[in-house]
């Protein structure tokens, strides 16, 4: 008879499983609420945008440099487009983050995909915000035929 305690030979049947760590907090709660709220807001913003750009007046045929330049001289459309950009980017990024969490099971895969996702988010939001606020509707030495009427007032 050996004197080895049997507890060392037979591992506890409950050993292999453990939730990796508790991740309690309101983050997922707020992001869940944000997805619903931003979704409703985006419906209004996007369909408003589509209606104004594609249906009012001559519709799609009047979209050119002058049209965009004219629109972005108005603070109203600046705020509208900024809201649309930010909400869409947060909403979409959060959605894709969820999909990555659901479909990628390895931590490394998740890490790489999410890094790429957040990188794309930062670039798009920074570039978009910059363009909305620094857009020059009347560049010097431009062909006057292409410019908005506000450039000649």
């Amino acid at each position, binding site marked *: 008879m050996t004197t080895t305690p049997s507890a060392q030979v037979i591992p506890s049947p*409950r050993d292999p499983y453990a939730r990796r760590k508790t991740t309690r*907090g309101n983050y997922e*709660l707020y992001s869940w609420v944000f997805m619903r709220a931003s979704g409703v807001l985006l419906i209004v913003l996007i369909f408003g945008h589509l209606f104004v750009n594609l249906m009012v007046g001559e519709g799609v045929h009047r979209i050119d440099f002058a049209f965009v330049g004219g629109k972005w001289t108005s603070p109203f459309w600046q705020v509208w487009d900024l809201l649309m950009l930010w909400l869409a980017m947060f909403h979409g990024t959060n959605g894709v983050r969820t999909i990555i969490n659901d479909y990628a099971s390895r931590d490394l895969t998740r890490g790489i995909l999410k890094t790429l996702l957040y990188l794309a988010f930062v670039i798009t939001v920074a570039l978009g915000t910059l363009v909305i606020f620094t857009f020059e509707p009347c560049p010097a030495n431009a062909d006057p035929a292409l410019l908005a009427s506000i450039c000649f007032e």
Partner: protein
Amino acid sequence: MTAVAENTRADAGTQTDDAPGAVASFEVTLKIRRYNPESEHGENVIWDEFTVQAHGTDRVLDALHKIKWEQDGSLTFRRSCAHGICGSDAMRINGRNRLACKTLLKDVNPDKPITVEPIKGLPVVKDLVVDMEPFFASYREIMPFLITSGNEPSRERIQSQADRDRFDDTTKCILCAACTSSCPVFWTDGQYFGPAAIVNAHRFIFDSRDEGAQQRLEILNDKEGVWRCRTTFNCTEACPRGIQVTKAIQEVKRAMITRAF
């Protein structure tokens, strides 16, 4: 009842199908996913087909019994009560999680081979037996017991019928894991609490006699808690007790949101 029917059949020989009140019998093939690391197949999964004679009143469990008792004693599966209440024999039958003891063969098209697999997302131990420990670990985490404060009352804790009805649906859970192992989010990495744990938390959160609702909501307000539910309704479809599982999860979500705002 079954024993009497079988005796009648044995007396009448092979012509029982014509006898009045006889139960039709037919041949059914079961295609079973086998896994036994101690066999010559090692870690490989193999599919075995067995053909047995079954009656129109037989369940999948009866066919499994017949295979185990008459053809291959090494076939391994769990069952205890065999009457749909112990929750031991949840398995994936023709691609859907069901209790083998509650599924009649005639309801899963016995004309074609019936596939039987272990439930998904939990480690398979042997054949149809899975390690239920991850499932029960989540269940333990939500504290599935009455939490109260103050002195014990000297008589019952009185509750109105309306208060009892509030959580009636989720008291039906038999912990068979059919819901949790049908959930695609649970399949991913097994970190999600799973529908069954949330259902059993719901059973106490909405019980007027219980005072642990805040603690349970706190536990489930986790990255791996209720917020990982994508409302695919797989759990509701899989539940052999007919619990509105997805609805229960949404009610827990709502309780968290009203608590936070």
